[in-house]
C-alpha cells in the first residue's frame, strides 16, 4: 500500500509564491511593454511586409527591417530593394502614398569580359547559381540574376557592374557570341579594351613568405604552390586575379606587370640554379674561417701562457723587494727606538743631577740665611723667591730635555 504523504500547506505555499511571482512578472512586463514601446508606424510594418524578407543585404541595409525603416524615413527610395524589382517598388509606393512610382527596372549584374580573369569567385559566391565561368570568362544569366550584387563585391578585378536590366541585356546582346570555344572575335575587343596595361601577374616576395599555403588553397587556377615553406607563382598559368594577394596574411604577394613579374621570377630561378655553387663556396669559406679561428685560438692560448709566466716572475720579484724593504724598515725603526730610549735615559740622569745640585745650592743658601739671620731681618723673605727660581730653572731644563 502506498502512503501518500501530502502536505497541503506546503503545496499551497509553493503554488502561491510561484503564482505571485509569475503575476508580478506579467504585470512588470506589461508595463515595460507600454513604457518602452518603440512606436513603429503601421506604414513601416506594411513596407516590411512588402519586402521579400530574404535579409540578403543587397539593398545596403542590415536586412529587410533596416531597408523598411530607411524607406519609411525617406532615406531610401521605394525601389531600394534590388531583389523585389518593380513589383515590390510599386507596392511600397502604394503604401507610402507616392503617386509617382519612379520608373524602376530590375538591377542585373553584368560582367565586363575585358577585365574578367575567370577566377570563378563570382560563380562560387552567387547564391542563385546565375554566374558561370566558361572559357575563363564569367557570364551572368540575366534571367535568373536577382541583382543582389554579391558577385560584384567579391570580384577581385571589379569587373562586375550592377545596372538596369535593359542596359545589361543590350550590352549582353552586343557581346560577340562565343560560338567557337576559343572565339577569335572575343579576343579582339579585349585587346582594345585594355590597351594601356600589360596583363597583371602575381609575384611572391619570398623574404616575407611564411609558407602558410593560403595562397595555394585560394588560387582558382592552381598557379601558386608552396615548396620548402615558400610560395611560388607559376607565371605561365597565373591569371592575375589577385585572390592570393588579398588572402596573403603577410601581404607579401604583389600584383605587377607580367614582364616585371617574369623578370623577377627568372632572376629567382637563376639564383636557385646558382645556389649549389654558392653553397660550395660558402662551405669552403666556412672551413677556412674555422681553421683560421682554430689557429688564432692556439696563438692566443700560447700568448696567454707566456704572459702568465712573466706575470708570476714579476710578482715574485716584487714580493722579494717588498720583504727586503720591510726588513730594513723594521731595523731602522729598532735603531731609532733604541737611540730614543738612550737619549731619554741620559736626559733623566742629567735631570736628576741638576736637581741634586739645585738642592745643594738651596741648602747652602739656607745655611747662609741662618748664619746672617740676625743682621738682615728681611733676608728670609728673599730666600723663598730664590728657592722658587731654582726649581723653575730645573723644571725648564727638564722640559727641554724631554
Amino acid at each position, binding site marked *: 500500500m502506498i502512503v501518500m504523504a501530502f502536505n497541503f500547506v506546503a503545496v499551497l505555499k509553493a503554488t502561491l509564491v*510561484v503564482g505571485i511571482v509569475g503575476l508580478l512578472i506579467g504585470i512588470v512586463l506589461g508595463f515595460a511593454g507600454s513604457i518602452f514601446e518603440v512606436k513603429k508606424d503601421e506604414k513601416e510594418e506594411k513596407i516590411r511586409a512588402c519586402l521579400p524578407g530574404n535579409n540578403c543585404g543587397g539593398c545596403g541595409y542590415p536586412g529587410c527591417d533596416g531597408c523598411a525603416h530607411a524607406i519609411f524615413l525617406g532615406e531610401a527610395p521605394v525601389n531600394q530593394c534590388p531583389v523585389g524589382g518593380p513589383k515590390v517598388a510599386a507596392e511600397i509606393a502604394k503604401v507610402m502614398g507616392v503617386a509617382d512610382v519612379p520608373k524602376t527596372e530590375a538591377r542585373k549584374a553584368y560582367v565586363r569580359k575585358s577585365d574578367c580573369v575567370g577566377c570563378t569567385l563570382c560563380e562560387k559566391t552567387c547564391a542563385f547559381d546565375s554566374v558561370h565561368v566558361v572559357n575563363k570568362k564569367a557570364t551572368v544569366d540575366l534571367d535568373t540574376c536577382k541583382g543582389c550584387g554579391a558577385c560584384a563585391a567579391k570580384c577581385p578585378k571589379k569587373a562586375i557592374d550592377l545596372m538596369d536590366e535593359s542596359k545589361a541585356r543590350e550590352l549582353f546582346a552586343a557581346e560577340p557570341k562565343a560560338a567557337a570555344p576559343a572565339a577569335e572575335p572575343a579576343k579582339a575587343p579585349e585587346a582594345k579594351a585594355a590597351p594601356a596595361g600589360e596583363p597583371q601577374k602575381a609575384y611572391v616576395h619570398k623574404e616575407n613568405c611564411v609558407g602558410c599555403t593560403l595562397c595555394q588553397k585560394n588560387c582558382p587556377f592552381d598557379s601558386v604552390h608552396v615548396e620548402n615553406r615558400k610560395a611560388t607563382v607559376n607565371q605561365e598559368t597565373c591569371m592575375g586575379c589577385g585572390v592570393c594577394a588579398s588572402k596573403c596574411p603577410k601581404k607579401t604577394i604583389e600584383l605587377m606587370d607580367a614582364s616585371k613579374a617574369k623578370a623577377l621570377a627568372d632572376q629567382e630561378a637563376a639564383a636557385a640554379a646558382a645556389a649549389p655553387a654558392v653553397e660550395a663556396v660558402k662551405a669552403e669559406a666556412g672551413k677556412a674561417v674555422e681553421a683560421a679561428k682554430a689557429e688564432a685560438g692556439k696563438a692566443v692560448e700560447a700568448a696567454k701562457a707566456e704572459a702568465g709566466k712573466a706575470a708570476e716572475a714579476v710578482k715574485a720579484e716584487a714580493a722579494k723587494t717588498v720583504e727586503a724593504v720591510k726588513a730594513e724598515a723594521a731595523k731602522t725603526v729598532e735603531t731609532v727606538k733604541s737611540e730614543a730610549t738612550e737619549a731619554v735615559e741620559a736626559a733623566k740622569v742629567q735631570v736628576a743631577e741638576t736637581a741634586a745640585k739645585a738642592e745643594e745650592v738651596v741648602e747652602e743658601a739656607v745655611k747662609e740665611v741662618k748664619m746672617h739671620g740676625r743682621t738682615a731681618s728681611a733676608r728670609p723673605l728673599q730666600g723663598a723667591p730664590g728657592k722658587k727660581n731654582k726649581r723653575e730653572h730645573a723644571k725648564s731644563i727638564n722640559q727641554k730635555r724631554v
Partner: protein
Amino acid sequence: MQGLIIIIITAALLDNVVLSQFLGICSFLGVSTKTEVALGMGGAVVFVITIASAVASLLYDFVLAPLSLGYLDTIVFILVIAALVQVVEMFFKKSIPSLYNALGIYLPLITTNCAVLGVALNNVTYGYNFIESVLCGLGTAVGYLVAIVMLAAIRERCEGCEYLESFKGVPMVCICAALMSIAFFGFSGLNI
C-alpha cells in the same frame, strides 16, 4: 576585499563556466564562428548574467529563503531570468538603440542559456550574499567572454589549415574546445 577579488578570479578562470563547468556550450559552439560576433555575444552575456545573478540573489534572500521554499529556486529563477532578458531587451530598444543594434540579436539567445541559470543556482549553493553573487556573476560572464572570443579566434585560424575531411566543421571545433578546456585546467594551479 581580497575575498571578493578571489571570487571574481575563481569564477572567471578556475571554474570557467564553459571550460570547467560545461555550461553554455550551445552558444559557445554556435556563435563562435567570427571574433566580432563572439565579442557581441560575450558582451551581451556579461550584461545579462551580472543583472540576473543580482536579481536572483535578492529573490532568494528575501522571498524564497524566508518562506523555506529554497527547492523552488530553479523554477523561479528560470521565470525571472526569461522575463528579465525581455525587459532588458525592451529597455535597450527604447533607450540605447546603439547598444540594442550591437547586442540585440544575441539577447533572445541568452534567455534560455544554461550559463545564466547555472550562475544563479551556483550562488545559492555557495551561499553567497548579494555583493558576492553579483561579482561571481560578473566573473563567470567574463570567463565566458574570454573563452568564446578565444575559440572564435582559433576557429578563424583553423580555416586556413589542412586537416582530414572527416574532422571538418563541428568535430574540429569540439577538439579545439577540448584542448582549451585542458589548457584552462592549468589555472587550478593558481595559489589563491
